[in-house]
C-alpha cells in the first residue's frame, strides 16, 4: 500500500512553471529521497503533497486518499530553515505546536521533555527559540516534527547545521522511525546521506522527474563497464582494457565489450601484481546526479 501517490502534478505561479509533470509513489515504511538541484521544484512538489498548494493538474493521494484535517495530525513536516516561533520559550513552542497536532497539553509536555532529554536540549527548554544555536534549533525542529509520532514524516534538509555527532544521531533516529513503521520523505542535497539512508529516490530537475526508483538499481543503471584498481606498483598492460584513467587514489580501467571483471582480475594475478584494491566501478550518487541533470538539459 502506498503512503503517498503523486500522479502527474503540475503547479504554476503566474508565468513560472514550478512543477510541470511529476509522478512518484512512496511506500509504507521506507525512506524516500527527493533530490534535485536548486529550483528543481522539490519544495513546491512537497507543498502540493501537503495540500498547502492546490495542483493545477494531477492528483495526490496521501495516507490513502486526499488530504483532510484528520490526516494532518498523522503527518509531521519540517520545512527547510527555521519554522519555530522565535520569541517564545522552546518548551512552550513545542507544546503549542504539539497540541495543534491533536495532543493534550500534558501529553505534549511529557513527550517534549523526553525528546528534549534525548536530544540534549533539556537544559535549554526555558530559553527563547531565538536564543538557541542553529544546530539546537535544527534539533528542536526535528523534535517538533516527530513529537506527535506521525505515520508520515516529510523533512526538508534535516542535516543542515548539525555537527557529525548530531548528524549520526538524526540518521539513527530516522532508521529507528523506519523500523517502527514510519514513512519518511527526505529532501536533501547531501548525497552521501541519501546513499546511506534512502531505499528509493526521485531526482527532479526543472519541474520534471528525471530518475526514479530503487537506489541500487539506479546506480547499476549508471555504472559503466569498468573496474577500480590500486596496487603497490605500476600496472602492466592488460588485454581487454581500452582506457586507463586516474580516479581518486585508484586507477579506473575501462573494459572492452565482452571482457568481464573476472578476466581482468585473473590477468592481473597472473602477472603477479600485488593488489590493494579491486572493485567494480559504481558511480556515486553525486556523479549520477550531475550526469542525470546534464543529460536532462541536453534532451
Amino acid at each position: 500500500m502506498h503512503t503517498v501517490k503523486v500522479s502527474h502534478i503540475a503547479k504554476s505561479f503566474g508565468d513560472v512553471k514550478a512543477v510541470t509533470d511529476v509522478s512518484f509513489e512512496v511506500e509504507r515504511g521506507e525512506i524516500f529521497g527527493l533530490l534535485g538541484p536548486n529550483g528543481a521544484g522539490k519544495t513546491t512538489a512537497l507543498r502540493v503533497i501537503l495540500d498547502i498548494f492546490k495542483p493545477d493538474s494531477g492528483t495526490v493521494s496521501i495516507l490513502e486518499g486526499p488530504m483532510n484535517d484528520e490526516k494532518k495530525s498523522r503527518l509531521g513536516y519540517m520545512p527547510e530553515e527555521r519554522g519555530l516561533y522565535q520569541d517564545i520559550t522552546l518548551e512552550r513552542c513545542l507544546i503549542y505546536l504539539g497540541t495543534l497536532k491533536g495532543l493534550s497539553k500534558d501529553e505534549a509536555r511529557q513527550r517534549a521533555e523526553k525528546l528534549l532529554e534525548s536530544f540534549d536540549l533539556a537544559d535549554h527548554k526555558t530559553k527563547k527559540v531565538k536564543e538557541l544555536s542553529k544546530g539546537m534549533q535544527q534539533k528542536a525542529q526535528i523534535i517538533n516534527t516527530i513529537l506527535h509520532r506521525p505515520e508520515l514524516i516529510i523533512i526538508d534538509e534535516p542535516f543542515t547545521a548539525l555537527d557529525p555527532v548530531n548528524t549520526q544521531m538524526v540518521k539513527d533516529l530516522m532508521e529507528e522511525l523506519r523500523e517502527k513503521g514510519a514513512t519518511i520523505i527526505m529532501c536533501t542535497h547531501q548525497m552521501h546521506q541519501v546513499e546511506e539512508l534512502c531505499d528509493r529516490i526521485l531526482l527532479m530537475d526543472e519541474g520534471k522527474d528525471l530518475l526514479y526508483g530503487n537506489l541500487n538499481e539506479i546506480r547499476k543503471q549508471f555504472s559503466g563497464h569498468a573496474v577500480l584498481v590500486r596496487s603497490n606498483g605500476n600496472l602492466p598492460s592488460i588485454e581487454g582494457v581500452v582506457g586507463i584513467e586516474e580516479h581518486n587514489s585508484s586507477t579506473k580501467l575501462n573494459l572492452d565489450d565482452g571482457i568481464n571483471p573476472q578476466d581482468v582480475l585473473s590477468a592481473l594475478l597472473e602477472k603477479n601484481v600485488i593488489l590493494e584494491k579491486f572493485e567494480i566501478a559504481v558511480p556515486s550518487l553525486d556523479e549520477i546526479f550531475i550526469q542525470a541533470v546534464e543529460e536532462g538539459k541536453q534532451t
Partner: protein
Amino acid sequence: MSTLWLIAKHEYKRHVMRRAYILILLSLPLMLTLMIGLIIATVNMENDDRPLGYVDQSGVLTEAIPAPLDSSLETPVEMIAYPIREDARAALDSGDIQAFYLLPDDYMETKHVELVYVDDIGDDATGQFWDFMRVNLMSNVPQGTVDFVTNGADITIRTPDGSREFSKSQILSLILPLLVGIGLVVLIMTSSGYLVGIVAEEKENRTIEILMTSISPNQLVTGKLLGIIGVVATQVTVWLGFLFGFIYLAANQFGYEWAQNISIESNTILMIVAVMVPAYVMFAALMTAIGSMVSATQEGQQLSGLVSLLLWLPMAFMGIIIESPNSPLVVGLSIFPASAPIVITMRTVFTVVPFWQLALSVTLLTATAGSAVWLAGRALRLGMLRYGQRLSLRELFRKA
C-alpha cells in the same frame, strides 16, 4: 480543546504578555490620572483657601447662613463678618483673610460692592462668596424658587415622536454614541498593528508552513482574529473600567451633576452594538487581508493607513452632517459600510435616524464584514507562502 480556542489563546497570550502591550494598556489611565491630577493640583495652587471677610453696611447679611458647596472637590472658604472697614483691613494686612468685600448702605439700590485685596483672589473663593450672597439674599424665598434662580431652567427638548429627548443635565448621555464612534476609530487604529502583522511573524519564521500542515487557513485566521479581538476587548474593558470608575468617583465622591445624570437608553446601546460589532469585524478582516497580502509588516502598516483614512473620511463631512443630518448625501454616507459607523453615531446627536436606514446600514455592514472575513481567509491562503513577494489584488480575485 478546540483548535480555534488553542490558536485564539496562543495569540491572546502572545500579545498581552508583551511589555509594549501592558504599557499601552496602562498608558491611557495613567495619562488621564496624571492630567486630572495636574489640573486639580494647578487649581489648588491657584486657589486660596484663607477666609474672606465682609463688612455689611447694608444689613443684608445680618443673620448670614452658609451656602452649600457645588462639589466635594471644593474647599470651603470661611466668610468672616467685620463690623467696620478698619477691622477688615487689619485682618487683610495681617494675612488672616485673603480679601474683604464691603457692602455699602445703598447696596440694595446700587448693587455696588467694593472688593479690597492685596493679591488676586481665587475663582473658588469668588464663586463661594456670590453663592453665599445669593443664599442670604433669598433666605425668605421658597427653596424651589431659590434653585430655579440659582440653576436656571432645566429645559427638556423632545422629538415629535417622543423617541428622544435632550436635557442639558444629560449632555454626556447624548454624546455617548459619538464618543463610542470615535472610540471605534481609535480601537481600530490601535489594533491595526496586530491585525496587519497577524501572520507576519509566522511568515518570517516559516512557522506558517508547519501551521498549514496542522490546521486549515480558515481555522488559523479565525482563531487569530478571535485572539486579537480578545486582546482588544481586554484593552476596552480596562479603559472602560477606568472610565466608569472615574465617572463613579465624579458622581459619588465629588458630586458632579454631569456625572450623576448619566442614563443610556437600551435602544442606544442596541444601536451601538448593532453598528459597531460588524464595523469592527469588517475593518479587522480588511487589515488582516492586507497583512496577509504584503511581504513585509512595514508595507502592511503603510497600506493600513489607507483603511484608516476611510474611517476618518466622514469627519470631512461634519459640517453637512451637523447642518443637514437628513440630507441625501448624509443618508448615503450612513448606508455606505465604510462611513456608516461614524456617520450614524454622529447623526444620532443631531436627529432621529429612521429605523429603515439603520436596518439597511446594519445589514450591509454585516454582509460586508462576512465578505471581508472570507477575503481575509483567501488572502491568507494565497499570500502565506509568498516570501518577499506581494500578492496583487488581481491575483486575489482571479484565483477566487
